[in-house]
């Protein structure tokens, strides 16, 4: 009979052996001979930490209590592994490209590197895994106690609680020594992984050995075994369908979500091809682990007293047959299961706690930013060690509070349900781009709350945390809210009940929250990266490091990665950039790689925060980019507005220049007008004055002379009068003071009158062709004024048409609502540069005899304008054409 002391000695030797293996593995890895350490076999075996002491001892107890149901715990993970293509492939790729360190890191990273989310997931994971750690303590202490009393009925006089304390302490020390020797979680714990692989072999061999002993040693062969199974008390199929389904799903979910599983599946994964092999190799392991569970349970039920603890059949059956050696092997198997699980679970959790809780708090307490001197690595290591101690202490506390009672399987399922709450946020995060931080947050909180209320708190038993009354009648006697029959659903198994409601409401809250909220830019970016990880295993976002000092980065990197590691990284980077020194340029690429390296040590959110502290204002966040884009869009718009305005301005300037030119011309004309008018007035005045003086002063004038002089004075006076009349006329017309006398008459008669008037006393004859005039045209207008216009035009033609055979053609054209009277002569065309001025006052073109005052056309224009029409000069090939437009 093996004593407890012997067992403790065996355990210590075993632990020392594990240490040696781990140490050798790490040395081999550091010398670069560690390729075999990273084989698919080791990867597959390391996954076996799924099989804990719960599996090792509890599965048999489970089978003894409820038959085949125990196997669901293995079916779920087997399906997940076989279906690697759907989920694990993506998870592993994301974990490798984004350098994810834990479940919390994955979720926080996916939802915009949210630290709040990371903290919540961390807390949930710690709370969820605590019962699991308690479970390991319980199984190790129970298994120890069995050697004190092989019947397994009493505790053999051992103080189980104090034994639990020593086991907890031992495990804590073991984990601290094993797991926190080096820092970078993503450097992967070669030693730990190898130790776990060895332990995986030990527990498999132990369970298979017991199984083979039971089947062939006790029952006497496979056939007899089957007969004994069928005739035993669990010989019939008695599985509750809802539990079968729920537990299969639950175990699959937990396989993905358990922090320790995530650690070995994703973080410790070295090569994606290993996953492909493990996809069928790990189910083999699981199958072998469960192969002999039912036979051991059946034989245990047969051989041992009815009150023996079925959770310990793996030990008690060999012991009862006097197989002490086998029992010790079996004990080692259970011990291996417990230790490997506790090591990896607490390692994973402590990484989460220190990265997402301790480091952010410490950094914010530091205040001065990330560049202060001092080694952060010590802080990280210290916080990890403290986290390990706290987590195991919590497990021990749970063990004390729950009184070390309860079947192992039940406790394990509570834990599973707790961590399964990560599933919606995780799966939604990697498959659905619409998943948002708000959705993840609400889903996690809702699921977690329901889990605590419906599963965790009732698990302590009635009247420990929840009173019996609360369990029976619900809070405040609200039937609806009874912890184990929420919303009035009764008669359901408590586990199925808790799994269903927590996951259902969790998913609903997650989806609803995602649908109604709007993600921030970083979330959307990360979402796209995670969901489309195979399309672009690209980069998250750019740092602009133009101002970031390489030296500061170096100081910070040394504190986190360690001096030589950081120097190596920087030197490698400098070489890659083609530089001689040790400090590379802080290019966006380099900053990004540095952030990833650091995130492997301190988590994505913290690394991001530290780099942004150093790179400071020049870190280009997506928000900044959006702001810049927005600004440039505004500037673009503004500049296009400016452009429009400037073209408008240049048009206006052009118009102004035209106007100015015209004004200048007009000013010249005004001067010309003034000199002209004084000249026009003075010439007749001078003749009048001189001839009137002659008449006054000369006595002996002939009558003929007198008459002659007097008539000169008369003619000049008439000329003056006419000039003044014209000026008066024009000024009246221009000021708009003219009063029109409208009358109706034929256009032809007006023209006839004008022709008659002009031809009477004409010096030069001009042939006037009136054949083109429509005699039927009747106008209602001021006919006298109109005739004045016509007279002017005809006399102009008479005066200025220098053709040998001067001809004036007058014709009418009717267009729409107006009539155009055309006066076409065959003289010399008015030069182009003068055309603009012919209608201005005193403009005279090649006026050799100086008889005109240059007011005629100006008057014409004013009159026609008053009559509602217009007059224009049309250039023709030979001669001139004036068109008078008149309204009909």
């Amino acid at each position: 009979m093996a004593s407890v002391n012997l067992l403790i000695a065996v355990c210590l030797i075993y632990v020392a052996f594990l240490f040696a293996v781990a140490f050798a593995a790490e040395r081999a890895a550091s010398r670069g001979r560690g390729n075999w350490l990273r084989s698919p076999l080791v990867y597959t075996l390391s996954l076996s930490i799924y099989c804990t002491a719960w599996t090792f001892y509890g599965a048999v107890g489970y089978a003894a209590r409820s038959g085949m149901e125990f196997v669901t715990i293995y079916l779920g993970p087997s399906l997940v592994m076989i279906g690697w293509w759907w989920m694990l492939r993506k998870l592993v790729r994301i974990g490798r490209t984004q350098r994810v360190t834990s479940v919390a890191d994955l979720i926080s990273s996916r939802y915009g590197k949210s630290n709040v989310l990371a903290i919540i997931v961390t807390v949930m994971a710690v709370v969820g895994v605590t019962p699991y750690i308690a479970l390991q303590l319980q199984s190790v202490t129970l298994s120890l106690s069995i050697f004190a009393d092989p019947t397994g009925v009493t505790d053999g006089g051992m103080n189980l609680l104090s034994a639990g304390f020593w086991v907890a302490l031992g495990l804590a020390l073991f984990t601290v020594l094993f797991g926190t020797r080096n820092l970078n979680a993503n450097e992967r714990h070669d030693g730990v992984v190898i130790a776990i692989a060895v332990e995986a072999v030990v527990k498999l061999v132990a369970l298979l050995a017991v199984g083979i002993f039971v089947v062939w040693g006790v029952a006497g062969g496979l056939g007899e075994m089957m007969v004994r199974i069928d005739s035993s008390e669990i010989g019939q199929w008695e599985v509750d369908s809802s539990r079968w389904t729920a537990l299969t799903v639950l175990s699959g979910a937990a396989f993905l979500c358990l922090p320790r599983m995530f650690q070995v599946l994703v973080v410790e994964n070295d090569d994606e091809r290993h996953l492909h092999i493990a996809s069928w190799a790990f189910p083999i392991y699981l199958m072998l682990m469960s192969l002999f569970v039912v036979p051991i349970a059946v034989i245990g039920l047969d051989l041992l007293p009815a009150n023996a603890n079925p959770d310990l059949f793996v030990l008690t059956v060999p012991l009862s047959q006097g197989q002490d050696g086998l029992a010790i092997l079996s004990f080692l198997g259970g011990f291996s299961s417990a230790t490997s699980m506790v090591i990896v679970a607490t390692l994973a959790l402590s990484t989460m706690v220190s990265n997402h809780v301790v480091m952010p708090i410490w950094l914010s307490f530091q205040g001065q930013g990330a560049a202060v001197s001092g080694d952060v690595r010590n802080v990280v290591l210290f916080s990890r060690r403290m986290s390990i101690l706290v987590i195991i202490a919590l497990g021990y506390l749970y063990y004390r509070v729950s009184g070390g009672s309860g079947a192992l399987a039940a406790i394990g399922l509570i834990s599973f349900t707790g961590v399964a709450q990560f599933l919606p946020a995780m799966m939604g995060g990697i498959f659905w781009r619409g998943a948002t931080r708000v959705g993840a947050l609400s889903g996690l909180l809702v699921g977690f709350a329901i889990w605590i209320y419906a599963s965790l708190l009732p698990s302590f038993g009635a009247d420990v945390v929840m009173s019996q009354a609360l369990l029976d009648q619900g809070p405040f006697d609200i039937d609806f809210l009874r912890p184990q029959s929420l919303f009035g659903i009764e008669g359901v198994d408590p586990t199925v009940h808790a799994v269903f409601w927590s996951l259902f409401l969790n998913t609903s809250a997650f989806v609803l929250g995602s649908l109604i909220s709007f993600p921030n830019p970083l979330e959307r970016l990360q979402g796209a990266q995670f969901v489309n990880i195979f399309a672009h295993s690209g980069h998250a976002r750019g740092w602009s490091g133009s101002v970031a000092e390489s030296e500061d980065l170096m100081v910070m990197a040394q504190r986190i990665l360690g001096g030589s590691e950081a120097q190596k990284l920087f030197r490698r980077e400098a070489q890659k950039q083609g530089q001689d020194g040790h400090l590379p340029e802080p290019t966006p690429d380099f900053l990004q790689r540095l952030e990833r390296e650091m995130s492997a040590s301190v988590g994505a959110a913290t690394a991001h925060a530290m780099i942004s502290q150093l790179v400071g204002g020049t870190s280009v966040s997506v928000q900044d980019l959006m702001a810049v884009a927005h600004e440039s869009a505004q500037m673009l718009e503004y500049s296009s507005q400016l452009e429009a305005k400037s073209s408008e301005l240049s048009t206006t300037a052009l118009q102004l220049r035209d106007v100015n030119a015209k004004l200048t011309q007009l000013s010249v004309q005004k001067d010309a007008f003034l000199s002209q008018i004084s000249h026009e007035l003075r010439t007749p005045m001078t003749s009048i004055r001189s001839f009137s003086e002659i008449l006054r002063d000369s006595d002996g004038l002939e009558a003929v002379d007198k008459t002659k002089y007097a008539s000169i004075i008369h003619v000049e006076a008439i000329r003056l009068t006419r000039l003044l009349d014209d000026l008066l006329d024009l000024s009246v017309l221009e000021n708009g003071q003219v009063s029109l006398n409208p009358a109706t008459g034929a256009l032809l008669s007006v023209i006839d009158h004008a022709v008659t008037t002009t031809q009477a006393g004409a010096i030069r004859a001009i042939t006037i062709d009136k054949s083109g005039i429509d005699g039927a045209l009747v106008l209602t207008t001021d006919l006298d004024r109109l005739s004045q216009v016509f007279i002017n035009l005809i006399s102009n033609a008479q005066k200025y048409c220098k053709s040998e055979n001067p001809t004036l053609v007058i014709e009418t054209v009717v267009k729409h609502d107006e009539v155009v009277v055309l006066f076409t002569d065959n003289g010399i065309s008015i030069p182009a540069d003068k055309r603009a001025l012919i209608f201005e006052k005193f403009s005279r073109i090649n006026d050799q005899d100086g008889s005109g005052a240059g007011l005629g056309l100006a008057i014409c224009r004013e009159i026609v304008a008053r009559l509602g029409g217009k007059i224009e000069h049309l250039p023709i090939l030979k001669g001139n054409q004036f068109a008078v437009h008149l309204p009909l």
Partner: protein
Amino acid sequence: MSIDLNQPVFLERRSYRQRRMMDAVRLLPVIGLLLWLLPTLWSVSDDGGVEPVKMSQAIIYVFGVWVCLILSGGLLWRYLVAGGEMPAPLDADATSEPE
């Protein structure tokens, strides 16, 4: 998903066969799930008149499915590795595979 004109629409026989094997890989867990959920339909001991399923039969069924799944998974893996269809490690598989 937009159509990439650079990718062939039809594949030669060998590639076609491998694509279908990838389909099988994807389908395998679904088949496993269905087979393993089948026991929920079995009669339990308190069903009147119907003989309940014996434990030995249940064990043979569940483990039989398990062995089949493992074998299929392993064989598919071997076939696909030999054909080079398995996604290569990180760097080589930057683009999504054609369907």
